[in-house]
């Protein structure tokens, strides 16, 4: 479990136990006066009850994955969803940052929808590259999640004064390239934000990281700079990604970038393995590398409070 923001009063035993309970699933994101911060999941959730709101990010559930790195990817997703169900305060919604399925099969989409839907929380999706490898290269995804979206599935919405933008950077990829947004989506984005006040907190979510994490493993987006250019004038921009199955953060001016854990299997840190393929770890260690995220936003505060929680503490 990682805390970007630490409890200034120290950690009580009860608090520590609560944190351990949550360790292993995901990240709780909090928007606090505009800038998301990753807090302890329960910290964020508790704080949000006073002023502001909390939403969750889950990512890379890879329903259908059954290889040695995690032969039971559906089970670990279920554990993650059980944690969402057990939250004392229901989050406003969840963001799923892609790779819902492993091979875009109908049964995988069905299993994912049933399980994730059982949390009883609205979910906003963007696709990962594994979600658009059906025969129609994305048709199956759009039939399920494409309502009220543009192009390959991008859209925006507003909640509690925060502007949320879901981008697709896994479609129409080019030989030798990285993730790509493409000219149509960039044009849409420019138009989407042009009438917003610069004080509007903005949260961008997409599958592949929008900064160059490790291009030789494909961990970046070719035209991310153009997208971030349209967001430069905003006082608070938070970018949430998946794809690399591990936590990573970066701050650049008013923009904070965060990658999330997977609920299915971990991947190696950049350059520490021959390839970015699934990382095999001892079974008892697996859940400490999977997780969910919570984000809490408080009006009048600059930072969103972000809490990453593993499925198990070690």
């Amino acid at each position, binding site marked *: 479990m990682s805390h970007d923001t630490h409890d200034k009063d120290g950690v009580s035993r009860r608090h520590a136990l609560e944190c351990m309970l949550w360790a292993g699933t995901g990240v709780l994101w909090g928007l606090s006066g505009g800038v998301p911060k990753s807090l302890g999941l329960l910290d964020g959730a508790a704080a949000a009850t006073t002023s502001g709101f909390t939403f969750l990010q889950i990512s890379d559930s890879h329903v259908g994955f059954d*290889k*040695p*790195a995690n032969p039971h990817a559906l089970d670990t997703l279920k554990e993650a969803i059980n944690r969402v169900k057990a939250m004392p305060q229901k989050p406003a919604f969840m963001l799923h940052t892609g790779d819902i399925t*492993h*091979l*875009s099969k109908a049964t995988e989409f069905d299993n994912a929808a049933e399980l994730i839907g059982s949390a009883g929380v609205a979910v906003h999706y963007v696709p990962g*590259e*594994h979600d658009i*490898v059906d*025969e129609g*290269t994305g048709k199956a995804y759009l039939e399920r999640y494409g309502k009220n979206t543009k192009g390959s599935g991008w859209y925006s919405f507003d909640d509690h004064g925060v502007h949320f933008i879901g981008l697709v950077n896994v479609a129409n*990829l*080019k*030989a*030798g*390239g*990285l993730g790509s947004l493409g000219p149509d989506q960039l044009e849409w984005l420019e138009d989407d934000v042009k009438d917003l006040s610069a004080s509007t907190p903005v949260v961008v979510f997409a599958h592949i990281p929008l900064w160059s994490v490790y*291009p*030789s*493993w*494909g961990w970046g987006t070719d035209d991310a700079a153009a997208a971030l250019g349209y967001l430069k004038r905003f006082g608070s921009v938070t970018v949430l990604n998946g794809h690399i199955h591990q936590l990573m953060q970066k701050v650049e001016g008013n923009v904070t970038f965060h990658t999330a854990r997977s609920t299915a299997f971990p991947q190696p840190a950049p350059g520490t393995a*021959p*390839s*970015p*393929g*699934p990382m095999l770890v001892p079974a008892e260690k697996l859940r400490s590398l999977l997780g969910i995220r919570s984000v809490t936003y408080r009006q009048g505060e600059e930072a969103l409070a972000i809490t990453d929680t593993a499925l198990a503490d070690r």
Partner: protein
Amino acid sequence: MSALRLAALAALLVLGSGARAEETVVEIANFTFNPPEVTIKPGTTVTWKNADDIPHSIVEDATKFRSKPLDTGETFSMTFADAGEIGYFCGLHPHMKGKIIVKP
């Protein structure tokens, strides 16, 4: 596979070549096509085999052809009848590139 081989054979007959249809294998491992470049005679069948624990696909650079996603151990075969250079990449991980050179 047998249909593809027949097609390759038919192509060779049309060309009037006396050579037998050949096959070559490109293994996909550690997010790399191995070998990344192969030179073949017209009519040769190339079979890609995925040895990774993550799916990959074969997409021609201008998307003239595209395989289904290949899960671990799965294969995709294609016979190349005409001389020329065919660049391709992985549709899921486009930084992975390969090339087929077809030369009589």
